[in-house]
Structure formats: structure tokens, C-alpha cells
């Protein structure tokens, strides 16, 4: 059993929604590193270590000069690659002066950062999150920044939807979930948990959106992509119309999307969305679905939020390792194994903290 607090560094992590990053200096803690994000004049997003090389004042307290950041303390200036371009009171620049620059890619409406060895930052490795940006999928999500739980607890939550029966009773939860068998498969990058509930009464949320009476076949096909992205193909179709065989025309289909980013060992950022392929022009429905997820403590994700933070508080108060596991945890345990495999490949013991990497000038 590895320390569940560890995370791989050689991976793309969601750091912000693209629309959140403009010309303002935006601080964010990602993988225990303080990062400042901003949009360059050419439209690309830059990400620098949020600490001046000189006296560590957060650069996010300074201001932008073109594409360069000027420290708000003594005026040192750093370009978007992290190189110092100005030093006060001298005619030269100390050749050691730099801050770390993190490779950044904007894709699927999110800004993704690579926190490990920049030489390995291949944009082709950005997790598949295309449902967040591509037709026919429509939806508006949000972020729980600084959710007070280790990121793996969120993955565990999403990889086992039996919790819906209890945490989300009355909306998407019902007893069919806990009664139905499921199948777990995996590759070296992904884990899939597939569950079909056939010929059931639809739960209230789905009955409402299907808008047609009768029993349904319900599916939950959850795909985890290491290290921290989950996309769940969910929906219902009128019973016996062939959904399981591939014909979903008599149903409604959505995806719940989660990109989870470690903030510290006991907190994370949870970028979420719920996208759908029915009534895609209905902006009122888009707003309603957003509110159904986060609604001043009464939304579906608010319910998860409460459980996850309470779980972390309990772990902090009375750590008991390992957890007891049940068969329903198979998807989560495969996900952990893929994450741990990525960490092992980086030559790191998942329990032993983070070595210096990249351009960091210590």
C-alpha cells in the first residue's frame, strides 16, 4: 500500500478554466507549488512559479509589462519562460536568476499545466476531455477550488457510483444501482467501470429529462484516465430499445466530467461539468443543470463535497491505513494502481515527497 497522498508530476493537470485567465495575474497552488497564471499578448497562457527569485514575494502581487511579470517588491522582471530580464541597481543580470516556467496548454476549455520535467511535456498526453468542448455536448460546469480532501478521495467517489443511492437519494440515486452487477476493465492508462440497470423505474432526475413514461435501461460507463480525469457516460433509454446494443435514439445521454488536480496533500481543485446531448439549445436547461449540481449546498456535487471533506477530516483525526475495501472499490483500486505506476516510473516513492525538478533555482 502506497501513501495515498502522493501524486505524479509528469502529467497534465487542469489549472483553470480558459475563460478565467486573462491579463490579471492569477495565483493558484498546484501540486504543492505556487503558480501564477496569465494570458500573453499572443493569447497563449503562461505559468510561472509564483515566487520572485530574489526574496520570494509572490509575483502575482506584481504586475504585467507586456508579456513579462514585474515583481512588486524590487522590480525584478521575468519573461514568460521565467528568465530574468531586469535587475535593479546593476547593469548586468545575474545569470542564475530565473523562476520556473511550467508548460501550459489550453485544450477542452481548460488550461492544463505540466508540473514535472518540462522536457517530457508532450501536448499529446493531455487527457481526453473532448466532451467538455465538442459537439454535440453542451453544458456549463465550475470548479471547487481548494476542496479540502486528497484528490484520490474524489476519484474514489466517482469510480464507484453506489454512493449515489445514499448521497444522492431522490435525484439520481436509487436502489437499482446497488443491485446491479458491474464490470471493471483497464488498459495501461485507463480504467472503465460499466454498469447496466435494465428494465428499471427511472430515478427522478432521469424520468424528468427523458420526458416519457415507462421503464428504462440505464447505463453508467465511467472512464478514468490516469492520473486524474474521469468522464462518465450516463443516461437512460426506454427499456428494450437497444441502448445496450448501441442504439440510444430512444433515450437521453449525458457525461459527467471531472478533472481533479492536487493542491496539497489534503486538498484539491475539482473541475466539473455535466454535458448533455438533448435539448442542446435550451439555455434554461443548461442553467438548471448547473444549479442542480451546485446550489448553495443543496446540489448533487454539494452533497459529494460535504462527504469528501468530512472523510478527509476523519482521516486526519484518526488515520487508519489501509482502508477496508469492498468489491465496489475495484475501479478505484485500479485507478490507484495506475497512478502509483506513474509515480514509480518517475523514480519516486509515492510516500516520500517531491524532489526538485525542472528549472527551479533553489
Amino acid at each position, binding site marked *: 500500500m502506497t501513501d495515498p497522498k502522493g501524486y505524479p508530476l509528469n502529467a497534465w493537470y487542469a489549472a483553470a478554466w480558459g475563460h478565467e485567465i486573462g491579463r490579471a495575474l492569477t495565483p493558484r497552488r498546484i501540486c504543492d507549488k505556487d503558480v501564477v497564471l496569465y494570458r500573453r499578448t499572443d493569447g497563449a497562457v503562461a505559468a510561472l512559479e509564483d515566487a520572485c527569485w530574489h526574496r520570494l514575494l509572490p509575483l502575482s502581487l506584481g504586475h504585467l509589462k507586456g508579456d513579462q511579470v514585474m515583481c512588486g517588491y524590487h522590480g525584478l522582471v521575468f*519573461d514568460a*519562460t*521565467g*528568465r*530574468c*530580464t531586469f535587475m535593479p541597481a*546593476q*547593469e*548586468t*543580470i*545575474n*545569470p*542564475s536568476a*530565473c523562476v520556473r*516556467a511550467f*508548460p501550459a496548454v489550453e485544450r477542452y476549455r481548460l488550461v492544463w499545466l505540466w508540473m514535472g*520535467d*518540462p*522536457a517530457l*511535456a508532450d501536448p499529446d498526453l493531455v487527457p481526453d476531455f473532448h466532451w467538455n468542448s465538442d459537439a454535440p455536448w453542451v453544458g456549463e460546469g465550475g470548479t471547487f477550488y481548494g476542496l479540502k480532501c486528497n484528490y484520490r478521495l474524489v476519484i474514489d467517489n466517482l469510480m464507484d457510483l453506489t454512493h449515489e443511492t445514499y448521497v444522492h437519494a431522490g435525484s439520481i440515486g436509487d436502489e437499482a444501482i446497488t443491485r446491479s452487477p458491474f464490470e471493471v476493465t483497464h488498459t495501461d492508462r485507463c480504467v472503465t467501470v460499466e454498469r447496466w440497470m435494465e428494465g428499471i423505474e427511472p430515478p427522478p432526475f432521469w424520468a424528468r429529462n427523458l420526458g416519457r413514461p415507462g421503464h428504462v435501461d440505464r447505463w453508467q460507463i465511467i472512464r478514468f484516465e490516469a492520473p486524474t480525469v474521469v468522464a462518465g457516460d450516463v443516461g437512460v433509454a426506454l427499456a428494450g430499445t437497444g441502448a445496450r446494443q448501441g442504439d440510444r435514439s430512444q433515450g437521453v445521454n449525458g457525461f459527467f466530467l471531472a478533472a481533479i488536480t492536487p493542491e496539497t496533500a489534503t486538498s484539491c481543485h475539482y473541475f466539473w461539468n455535466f454535458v448533455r446531448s438533448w435539448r442542446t439549445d435550451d439555455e434554461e436547461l443548461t442553467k438548471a443543470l448547473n444549479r442542480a449540481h451546485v446550489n448553495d449546498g443543496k446540489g448533487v456535487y454539494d452533497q459529494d463535497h460535504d462527504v469528501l471533506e468530512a472523510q478527509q477530516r476523519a482521516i486526519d483525526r484518526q488515520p487508519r491505513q489501509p482502508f477496508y475495501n469492498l468489491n465496489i472499490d475495484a475501479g478505484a483500486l485500479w485507478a490507484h494502481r495506475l497512478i502509483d505506476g506513474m509515480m514509480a516510473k*518517475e*523514480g*519516486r516513492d509515492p510516500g516520500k515527497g517531491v*524532489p*526538485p*525538478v*525542472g*528549472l*527551479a*533555482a*533553489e
Partner: protein
Amino acid sequence: MAATHWIPARLRATRALTPDIRLLEIEPSGPVAPVPPGSHLGVAVMIGERPDTRSYSLLDSGADGLYRIAVKRLPDSRGGSAYMHGLEPGARLSISGPRNHFGLTPGRPGYLLVAGGIGITPLHAMALALHGAGSPFRLLYAARTRQDLALADGLRARIGDRLETVTDEAGGRIDLAAAIAGLPPGGEAYVCGPYGMMEAARRAWAESGRPAQGLRFETFGTGGRHAAEAFTVRIPRLAREIVVPRNQTMLEALEAAGVGMIHDCRRGECGLCTVKILDADGTVDHRDVFFSDAQKAANAHLCTCVSRVVGGGITIDTADRAG
């Protein structure tokens, strides 16, 4: 600055690369993560009876768990290179780091690496990293003689004709202006070598009109325009006359004589150990990168951690104003 964390290590093997350059393979006591190119290792050395530390650039990422460095025995050695050349395989070492003050920016459209003599060591690691990443780069490597081109054969086997060597004995010269002109916009140059080479590179870079931060260089503060020799420092305010031996820095000599000094980098970068020059009857050999060329020409100050005087002595003032 963080306190240095030392870990035990063992010298696993050594190999002569040239008559005065030795490859050392160091095995740390624990597992290590690969390090980025440009990183250097701290090594605890003994200079006579006195413990000291030296920094050596790593030749590769250490992905196999071994740290490789190349050490040149210097005629003007302050004792570090002689110590490193006296070590036998199996020797116990204390090492720190690695740390990186010479980081390679990823994703540039082109790279020019320029090495002079033992300055090849950090550029060796950079060349391997760039080659591995499929990045466009050239490595220009200059030495006095064919024999002094340590590591060239091994490098050529790995990076082919991206390596170009020149030697003084063959009358070769690196055409820095042409090499810089061949870099695409946004390309960067990385230089490590003797002071004269770095000065020439800085001048050529400035003349090319490229942004100053695109030229990266590393200095270990060794070697200037002139060979090191002993010289005398006079401090009238303190009524002191101090001799700086050939194998000691001016900063070390001043401190040993009880003159209060502040300093940090000891590489001629930070400008903390500078003193005011009142009079010089010798030539000041400015070896720092803190002062601009104009400031060096004005000769009003010097960096005591690296710069020296030849052909005479110097009269200076320090910060001490105690009554």
C-alpha cells in the same frame, strides 16, 4: 539560503579522459531521480587540513543512478582539483544537491551550445537532453589541442555531426557571430568556458541585437585574461597590507586577515563582495559577470570572490567605518 544537506556516496570508478581531465563515477547511498541538464553536484573536499566544497556539472541525467562528473587538474588549483584527482575508486564522499543554476529552457526553436575546454561538462548533459528530445541544436566545442577534447569521441558517437570541434593547434576558431546569426528568432545560446570565450560570446550576442536573456552562461569563477599570481592589497583606512597568494581568492585572503566582508555566490555573480578601488599599480583581471564591460573599464570596483590583480598591487577601501 537553505542549509546544505549532505548525503554519503562512494566513488565507483574513475577514468582518464585526457592527461589532466578525469571522469569520476559517483554512486550515492540512496536512489536518485534523474536531474535536468545544467545541474551541478556539491562535493565536500579537503584542502590540506581544511574542509571546503566544490561544484561540478553533471555529464548526464544520472538516470541509471550514477552521477558522472569530469574534473580538470588546474595548475592554479586552490586545492579542489588536486584533491579530486587524488581519489581512488571506493573512496567515500559527501555530496550535496544536485542543484541547477544553469537550466535549459525547453521548447525553443533552436539552441547553440558553446563549450571551451572543461566547460564542456554542463553542455554535454544539455546536448544529450536536446538530442533525446529531438530539438534542433549545435554544439561547438573548442580546446587547445585535439587531445584536450575530452568527451568528444563519446559525444560524436551519440549526437553525430551536431558536434563541431575546433582546436587552437589546428588554428581553428569558433565564429560566434556566424553561429549566433544561424539561430532562429527565439533561439537561445548556452556558453561555458574560459573567461575570454564568455566575453566574446556576450559581445557577439549583444551585437546581434538579440534579447540579453537569450544568452545563458555559467561561470565557475576560474580563469581570467591573465594567469593567477600573488598580489598585495593595501587598505589605508584599516592600515592593512595583505598578500593574496596565487591559490587563494582575494575574498578568502581578506577574510583570513580579519577584514569584515559580506559575500554570497562566490562566482562573481551577486556583487555583494565588491570593494572600491582607490589605486591600482597592477592590472585588475576582472573575472566576474556582475559588472558591465563599461564598469570594468572604469576600474572603480572589483568583485573580490573571483577577480585578481597581476603585475603589481592594489589599494582598496572596504565598508568598514568603525571608529
